[in-house]
């Protein structure tokens, strides 16, 4: 018997369910492979080299780009667009929707991004450098590639979707923010199907590596697979990753009508703002955000079975999140806490939606994947319920709470329920 939540009392046309998902991650290009990699403790971090910055580490995706796009579309578009096209098509396939007969004017595309346009702008500057900065050699493709809606717009072009499409710029809280936006639009009847989540192409901009490095927040390790180590005493920063995860979200009434398999239900969410610093997180506001999501869901902390943390492997960021988690879950007896960035690095705009996807199979197999690469837990991060290095079986997995936080103090939380 699942603990009651507030969303379950809503009419079916206000209840939002996940009916499909498609993803690409540095350690898997489909949901099953990704999940297995997490249970088998397979890292996706590898050596990487990018112009100007040089050698570093990154989480790189190797999905089949031409599965859903022509080579011409790939040339014209962006990596973020390509990630989104792949994830959206995979999600639709997984959802079992009769896509040919879906009213495309009633589909909305809501893609969370940390940033967009840096990759393409750096590319053009590199090109014109070869022509003594002659701007007449600057590509006419630059504007359509760098408009902020590009990662969602390429999905719309590929799928023939004529409903709304846009990106949600929410730093590294964007994956959750995309899901929340999709749910809100469904509740407002603005669309009948939302393709929502987050994507990232950030490994293709040297600037993100250089900036984290200048901030002393870029991870280094002689063994790439051990570099991303949230909560470990020896952690030294972020491993930048690319990736994407988009969900098909539907109103429960529509999902039931077509007999869809329901992966989970969005029963609570919240977004708030620190308003205290450009980069340093504020645990008090993070805790408030988690409490808000719990209150909306009508759940107590102890009723959350898995907390999927945001922790990125920075010294201060992980400690700050742990203050918030201790505040909310310090007395929880049943809550287990894990982290997925330890496997794949920080997939930026995709992080929230990807990390959630890594945990959703726990509704069925009741196994909680661990945070890996922890040789010694930092005392500041020694949380009750932290699942370290080995998967744990749980008697019950009914509720998963997913944290995703970002620069400029944006915090996002979603709570997904097992559907019964």
């Amino acid at each position, binding site marked *: 018997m699942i603990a009651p939540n507030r969303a379950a009392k809503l009419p079916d046309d206000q209840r939002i369910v996940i009916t499909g998902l498609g993803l690409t991650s540095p350690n898997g290009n489909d949901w099953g492979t990704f999940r297995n990699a997490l249970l088998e403790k397979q890292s996706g971090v590898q050596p990487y080299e990018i112009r100007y910055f040089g050698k570093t580490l990154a989480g790189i995706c190797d999905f089949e780009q031409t599965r859903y796009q*022509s*080579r*011409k579309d790939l*040339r*014209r578009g962006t990596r973020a667009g390509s990630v989104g096209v792949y994830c959206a098509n995979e999600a639709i396939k997984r959802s079992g929707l009769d896509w040919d007969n879906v009213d495309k004017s009633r589909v909305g595309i809501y893609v969370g991004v940390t940033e967009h346009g840096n990759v393409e702008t750096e590319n053009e500057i590199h*090109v014109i450098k070869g*022509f003594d900065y002659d701007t007449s*050699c600057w*590509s*006419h493709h630059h504007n359509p590639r760098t408009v902020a809606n590009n990662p969602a717009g390429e999905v719309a072009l590929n799928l023939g979707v004529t409903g709304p499409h846009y990106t949600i710029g929410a730093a590294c809280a964007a994956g959750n923010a995309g899901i929340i936006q999709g749910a809100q639009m469904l509740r407002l009847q603005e669309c009948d199907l939302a393709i929502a989540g987050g994507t990232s192409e950030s490994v293709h901009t040297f600037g993100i590596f250089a900036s984290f490095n200048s901030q002393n927040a870029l991870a280094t390790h002689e063994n790439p697979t051990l570099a991303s180590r949230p909560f470990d005493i020896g952690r030294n920063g972020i491993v930048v990753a690319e990736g994407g995860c988009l969900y098909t979200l539907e109103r429960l009434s529509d999902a039931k009508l077509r007999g869809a398999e329901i992966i989970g239900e969005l029963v609570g969410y919240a977004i708030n703002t620190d308003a205290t610093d450009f980069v340093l997180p504020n645990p008090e506001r993070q805790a408030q955000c988690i409490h808000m999501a719990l209150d909306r869901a009508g759940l107590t902390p102890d009723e959350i079975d898995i907390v999927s943390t945001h922790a990125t492997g920075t010294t201060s960021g992980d400690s700050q999140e742990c203050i918030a988690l201790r505040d909310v879950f310090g007395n929880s007896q049943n809550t287990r806490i894990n982290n997925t960035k330890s496997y794949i690095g920080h997939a930026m705009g995709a992080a929230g939606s990807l990390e959630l996807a890594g945990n959703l199979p726990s509704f069925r197999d009741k196994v909680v994947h661990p945070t890996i690469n922890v040789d010694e837990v930092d005392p500041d991060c020694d949380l009750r319920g932290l699942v370290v290095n080995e998967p744990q079986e749980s008697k019950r997995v009914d509720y998963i709470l997913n944290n995703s936080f970002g620069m400029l103090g944006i915090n996002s939380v979603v709570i997904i329920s097992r559907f019964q």
Partner: protein
Amino acid sequence: MTPAEIRDEILDILEDISPDEDLDSLDDEKAFRDQLELDSMDFLDIVMELRKRHRVQIPEEDYGNLASMHSTVTYLEPKMKDIVKS
């Protein structure tokens, strides 16, 4: 460059901007648009590539000369005759 070399160069550019097309059966007398899926952005790619590769400038009023392979080579011949193919 000779007209044949200019044609090869245009083919090379088309292979780059339209990699899914079969260019072996291209009819030089027929308009590109009647044989290939090219839009205005693709034609701008041809202009851009000629600028980048050979510093050949094509003013907008001359874009109509790029309609077919034959008209393109004819138009480019005086502009590219002194360029040595690398």
